[in-house]
């Protein structure tokens, strides 16, 4: 197990607790699908929300989900349906990381071209595609709370955010989360523990 910050005991305690994850309202989304269409139909909206949390942009999230669907069908359509879930989340995670890296490169290039400063010498914001659509969270009855958790998640390091969203929000087990993240079970537990610790601090008002 990874112990990068030396908080071995605290991490393990938290991890063991997390293994007994409360699976309320997850049962209906974990049934083995009858076919690929049913699988994608059941997961597509959650996948888009997940991508939106990580990317912070609706259209980029849409691109990531579309590409993940295409790759799953093309490369893993012949696999047993029970394996599709971790495969899909793994593909989507990689697409999200690709888009984040591409966006970073664009920011650097825009910085080089424009010098990162406007005519008055003020620093320009980093490049971000236009997103004129209304905030989807405004449609939610509990939109403020959803906005809080999304904001808190976006402040987390990427691996911690991935561990929390896949393990807690999407309800994958530790092995599936590890497969989707491309790391060991121990790393998942460590990232998740740290994410929980950070979120506890950030979401003090939720207690």
């Amino acid at each position, binding site marked *: 197990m990874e112990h990068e910050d030396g908080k071995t005991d605290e991490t393990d305690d938290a991890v063991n607790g997390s293994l007994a994850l409360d699976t309320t309202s997850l049962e209906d989304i974990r049934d083995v699908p009858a076919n690929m269409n049913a699988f994608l139909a059941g997961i597509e909206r959650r996948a888009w*929300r997940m991508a939106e949390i990580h990317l912070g942009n609706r259209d980029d999230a849409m691109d990531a989900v579309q590409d993940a669907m295409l790759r799953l069908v093309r490369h893993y359509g012949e696999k047993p349906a029970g394996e599709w879930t971790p495969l899909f989340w793994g593909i989507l995670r990689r697409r999200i990381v690709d888009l984040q890296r591409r966006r970073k490169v664009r920011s650097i290039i825009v910085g080089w071209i424009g010098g990162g400063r406007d005519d008055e010498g003020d620093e320009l914001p980093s490049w971000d595609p236009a997103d004129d659509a209304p905030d989807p969270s405004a449609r939610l009855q509990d939109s403020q709370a959803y906005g809080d958790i999304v904001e808190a998640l976006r402040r987390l390091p990427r691996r911690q955010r991935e561990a929390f969203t896949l393990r*807690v929000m999407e309800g994958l087990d530790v092995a599936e989360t590890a497969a989707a993240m491309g790391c060991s079970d121990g790393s998942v537990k460590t990232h998740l523990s740290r994410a929980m610790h950070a979120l506890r601090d950030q979401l003090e008002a939720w207690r």
Partner: protein
Amino acid sequence: MSQNDRNLERRARDLYLRASRDVDPAMAGRLRAARRAALAGPRESIARRLLIPASAFAMVALASLIVWQPGGGGTAGEPTAISQAMDNEPNDLPPDADSADPTLYQNLQFYSWLAYADAPSAAQRK
């Protein structure tokens, strides 16, 4: 895990699932279209997989037709209908200088000299 942590997990998950259910209709439509496109993708590639050998076969067949001219083997001496028709057409054009026999032009020069040489003797005879 403390009760607070359980509450945090449950609440985060509930909000996420609710937000996923409440995706706006426009985005839901785009997701449906993306799913259909993804599912249609392999069918296209299967069609392409069948089309590539078919077109290759057609190319080979065309090439062999060009190389092996029908009727050219057993009836080499007999002109085809097309060549017969061409032979029957009146040939009004002068012979091509490149393809004509060079001795023809030598002979023409000789005959023109002969005609010129014969002309004074014919006049003297008169």
